[in-house]
């Protein structure tokens, strides 16, 4: 019983090998062509596989619910629903590229929304008919609040050397608590109609929500900065080997502060966008934003250890949970199946990253 097994295993293995050999060779010669090497490089990253997964999911849902899933209405509402998350996930990508983490984003978003709304409600007046000056002030306050929390995170991480996980857990609690204290736990529902109009407005042949355009612009800029500029290069260099970056003369502390400040600022922008979309502060609506953003970044192929990150991957990572949610809902399953599926994808993403690291460490 035991004796023939090794030889059978060997036979099977050699059969597979001889069967795969021509394939492998063809792949090998293909990957040496110019186009092929681009493809090969792309599929050595997580982002390409995740993109494939997204396409397959959309295909499956469209097949199972024809005429319901890939409709203009559903695509638009999915895009609108991920816009806010995408903005904070872009900032989170930069933070995680440095090997850090920002747990505070969801509550900094909330805090910024609250301070912004309260500024526009200053003195208890009804801001419904306020002009652009008030709206602009509210915008500046939202951005400024986010920036302030981000700089604080950066200082605590870079200068006080408190690990990012704890530093941003601390500011998560602080920003959450202060948002509740400032608002008395009550949602502010009176906002200038200009903001509500912005949240509801559509551009590009009256089809694309303005908030989606804003989010996509943020993502595009983030992608360009991360992959083509010195700022992006330093960001991944620090995540890859902080000591090497320091020895190369890079001002690591300053750069880390800038990266956390950027994450906070984007959370502030997201807070304002959230006001525009929901026309209220939605105090209880952001409990999971931070974890969703982190999950999106990780699913998108950014390494938990830092050093490897793409904004394109993050964008796909934001979309996958949304597609799952929408698909399961349309098919009549409980939307909690999304959480089950996203959890599995998340683990898979980190597992493949670990595999990649282990493979290269063996050299």
């Amino acid at each position, binding site marked *: 019983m035991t004796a023939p097994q090794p030889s059978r295993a060997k036979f099977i293995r050699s059969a597979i090998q001889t069967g795969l050999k021509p394939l492998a060779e063809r792949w090998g010669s293909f990957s040496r062509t110019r186009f092929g090497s681009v493809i090969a*490089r792309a599929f050595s990253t997580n982002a390409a596989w995740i993109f494939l997964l997204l396409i397959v999911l959309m295909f499956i849902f469209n097949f199972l619910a024809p005429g319901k899933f890939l409709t203009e209405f559903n695509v638009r509402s999915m895009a609108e629903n991920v816009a806010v998350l995408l903005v904070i996930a872009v900032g989170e990508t930069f933070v995680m590229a440095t090997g850090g983490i920002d747990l505070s984003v969801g509550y900094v978003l909330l805090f910024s929304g609250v301070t912004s709304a309260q500024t526009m409600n200053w003195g208890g007046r009804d801001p419904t008919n306020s002009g652009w000056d008030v709206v602009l002030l509210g915008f500046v306050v939202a951005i400024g609040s986010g920036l302030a929390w981000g700089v604080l995170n950066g200082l605590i991480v870079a200068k006080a050397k408190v690990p990012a996980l704890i530093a941003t857990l601390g500011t998560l609690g602080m920003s959450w608590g202060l948002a509740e204290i400032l608002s008395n736990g009550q949602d502010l529902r009176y906002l200038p109609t200009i903001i509500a109009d912005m949240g509801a407005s559509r551009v590009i042949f009256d089809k694309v929500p303005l908030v989606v355009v804003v989010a996509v612009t943020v993502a595009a800029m983030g992608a360009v*900065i991360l992959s*083509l*500029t*010195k*700022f992006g*290069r330093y960001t*991944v*260099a620090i*995540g*890859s*080997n902080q*000591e*090497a*970056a*320091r*020895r*190369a*003369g*890079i*001002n690591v502390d300053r750069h880390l502060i800038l990266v956390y400040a950027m994450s906070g600022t984007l959370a502030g922008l997201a807070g304002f966008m959230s006001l525009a979309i929901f026309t209220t502060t939605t105090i209880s609506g952001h409990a999971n934003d931070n974890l969703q953003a982190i999950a999106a970044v990780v699913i998108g192929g950014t*390494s938990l250890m830092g*050093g*490897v990150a793409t904004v394109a991957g993050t964008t796909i990572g934001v979309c996958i949970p949304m597609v799952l949610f929408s698909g399961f809902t349309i098919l009549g399953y409980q939307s909690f199946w999304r959480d089950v599926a996203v959890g599995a994808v998340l683990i898979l993403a980190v597992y493949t990253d670990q595999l990649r690291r282990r493979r*290269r460490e063996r*050299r």
Partner: protein
Amino acid sequence: MADPLLQARGIVKNYGHVEALRGCDFDVYPNEIVALIGDNGAGKSTLIKILAGTEQADEGEIVLEGHRIHVGSPFEAMRLGIETVYQDLALAPDLDGSANLYLGREVMMAGLLGKLGFLDNKTMRAGARKAFGELGVDLQNAQSAVANLSGGQRQSVAVARSVAWASKVVFLDEPTAALGVVQTARVLETVKRIRDRGVAAVLISHNMRQVLEIADRIEVLRLGRRVARFEGKGATIEQLVSAMTGGIAEEGAA
């Protein structure tokens, strides 16, 4: 003999209870290859790190071209023309060879794009190919992350990086430890070439034959102090070994 280019005087460095350097002196003269040798734990790497600004001395002073200098950070050392190949290489493993070569000194695009922070990757890749070529390293896939290179290739990337930028002194902490015969010869050739370019080279190595072959002078550390100095010509392996292991009296005490 000319005045020293770089001098360390009475450097003391403690790590908690470990006395890594106990009043260490060290001299580098212009246009020379000086080997810094000593047993494991003698303090060679620590001394280099202090001279390169990655560590700060507890006591002692550093003199460059007759002026006392303060090397508060690697950046300051680099600005003074001092480059280092660290024993632990200090590369960013997720970046490619060219990105590592130019880390901290990126070439920017011309004009407005450059001002906006856009990198000129094409120029940097061409420069990297040339620099690696001189070291006899053929990076088959120049865009592959440094982590995917062999240990020797990685070492060559680190050497190329320092050699390319040094204008006064380059420290090489065991730069040939992981290299094959051909690459070792190339690195040593490169060390000679930078000396001929007017840059002093400090070579840390445990390979005595290599040291005798290439060094103009040899300085020996033991237990955090300089204990002996030799001219490269005429020294023998026996002399070096006995100096490293305490077979001869300490310099100064003698």
